């Protein structure tokens, strides 16, 4: 198919720029740019080759939010990259930074105290629920259901309020530090958390009626974007996209980090593999995270308030820092942490974020800065699904599949 490429409707904008909205490539095959400024594409551009209404080939053109995380990770020392890597997906802050901190702890041979581990799991589960609700909100805007966007955003504010009481910031807590966490739970936190959990359980029932059972939404999702089990395994999809296609894989079960092996919860796995199955996996995961939060809050309430920083750091605390840790529950940092050295070696830290498994390959040459930080985020591994799941569907299915994959470009572009 060499054929001459006739440019259809190309124009020289007043910027003097040759902007081509769509190129005619074949006999009746057009290349349409669903560009970065498009309600159906978020911060990326999908170039789809369309034959009539059916997508023949999709080429995701990402990199619009590439903020050079790996290069900056190599010049900022060991503590400063924690807020840096958190900016990849700020509504899932604890799950994104915890694997990096655990990789550094593996290299340093430091172990966080048990209370700090429970606090980390608490914030990770709150962020998982907030991340799923954010995914629901964007997904329902793609399907045109603005009420579900507002309900999901509203209920997400309840969990952001919890995180704000616990850490002092809405989204970007940078809560874990190598060796522990930065704050302990305030006074009225346990029953506030239980109220939030009971409220969310009632709301999940109304979500099912308004969104999952809604005839319009159900007809848009059933049988759309089907990814069979072996294709999902071949493509290496992660998180709810894999568990929606029948792959029983969750890092909290494979490598139970922190205290996940002491908690009682289930990982939902559906076998259909279509957009509806992925959505149901996320709804079930919200319900399971609520169970985890209840168990963690009960444990934290019973146990005494031990220091939330590792023994090797707590020994070096001057009396002022110890007093603040008791009174305000705030763990102070020590000045040598800005330029601390980590013994040489290479480690892989893994964690289960809301969107799937994130992996940090951290290599240190014993210096002040990490020698190499390689980050593979869940959305970076889900991008390939656009190229192999989209062809064959209609153009109107693009938002349904894009939303069901819960793809977040800043996290994919790193």
């Amino acid at each position: 198919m060499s054929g001459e490429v006739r440019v259809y409707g190309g124009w020289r904008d007043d910027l003097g720029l040759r902007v081509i909205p769509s190129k005619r490539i074949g006999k009746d095959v057009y290349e349409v740019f669903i560009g970065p400024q498009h309600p159906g594409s978020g911060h990326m551009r999908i170039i789809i080759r369309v034959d009539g209404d059916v997508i023949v080939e999709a080429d995701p053109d990402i990199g619009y939010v590439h903020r050079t995380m790996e290069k900056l990770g190599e010049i900022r020392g060991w503590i400063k990259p924690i807020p840096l890597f958190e900016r990849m997906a700020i509504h899932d802050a604890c799950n994104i930074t915890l694997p990096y901190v655990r990789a550094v702890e593996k290299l340093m041979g430091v172990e966080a105290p048990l209370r700090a581990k429970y606090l980390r799991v608490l914030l990770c589960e709150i962020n998982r629920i907030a991340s799923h609700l954010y995914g629901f909100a964007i997904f329902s805007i793609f399907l045109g259901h603005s009420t579900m966007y507002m309900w999901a955003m509203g209920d997400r504010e309840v969990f952001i309020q919890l995180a704000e009481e616990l850490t002092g910031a809405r989204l970007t807590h940078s809560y874990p530090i190598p060796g522990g966490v930065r704050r302990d739970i305030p006074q009225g936190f346990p029953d506030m958390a239980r109220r939030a959990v009971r409220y969310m359980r009632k709301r999940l029932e109304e979500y099912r009626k308004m969104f999952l059972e809604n005839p319009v939404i159900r007809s848009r999702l059933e049988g759309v974007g089907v990814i069979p089990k072996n294709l999902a395994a071949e493509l290496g999809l992660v998180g709810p996209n894999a568990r929606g296609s029948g792959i029983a894989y969750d890092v909290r079960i494979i490598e139970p980090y922190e205290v996940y092996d002491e908690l009682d919860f289930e990982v939902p796995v559906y076998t259909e593999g279509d957009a509806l199955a992925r959505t149901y996996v996320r709804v079930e995961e919200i319900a399971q995270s609520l169970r985890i939060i209840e168990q963690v809050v009960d444990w934290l309430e019973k146990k005494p308030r031990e220091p939330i920083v590792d023994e090797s750091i707590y020994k070096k605390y001057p009396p002022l820092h110890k007093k603040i840790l008791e009174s305000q529950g705030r763990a102070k940092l020590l000045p040598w942490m800005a330029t601390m050295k980590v013994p040489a070696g290479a480690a892989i830290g893994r964690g289960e974020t809301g969107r799937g498994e994130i992996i940090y390959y951290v290599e240190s040459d014993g210096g002040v800065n990490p020698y190499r930080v390689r980050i593979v985020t869940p959305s970076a591994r889900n991008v390939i699904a656009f190229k192999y799941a989209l062809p064959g569907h209609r153009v109107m299915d693009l938002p349904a599949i894009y939303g069901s994959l819960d793809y977040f470009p800043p996290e994919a572009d790193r």
Partner: protein
Amino acid sequence: MVEARERAEGVVGPRRYEEVLKAARSRAEEALRAVGVSFSIEEGKGFVDLVVDVDSVVRAAEALKAAGFDHVVSVTAVDYPKRKQIKVAYHVTSYLDPEIAGGIVGLAVYLPRASPEMPSLTSVWVSAEFMEREVYEFFGVHFRGHPDLRPLLLVPELAEKHPLRKDFVVREESIYEGVPERVRRG
């Protein structure tokens, strides 16, 4: 009843991760020995790297794929200017085989830093396609046989500079510079 269903589905219970890693490592070593590929081992915390040389990497990859490692978790490239080498490691694991599900094994290759080039493994693992494009634009490693080797994240003129190499220096601001004049006078 739940346990029965788990076994039926062959789902990995929460065993200690070390056992899973040991099982994956032994499975990979047997696969490579069966194919007759010589490899050396590089230990890492939470994973293990099997270093092979360039021309036998495709055979090793097919052996690992047959042994049950069905997808690539990350194509990790590290630049060693002192040893004039670039290490490209394919960290692979398995979804469908419950014994080794989750255990990360790395298939590593050392390439000369001047003109790094190696055969693309996209034919063996489809999931490596986008990551190989990324390593191509950040490190300049040319993958022979890759279906469409184009820059993935960067603007074309930046992609030629291969930013993640150690000689592309990004300067860190010191704690005294960048203060405007009216503030410095205090």
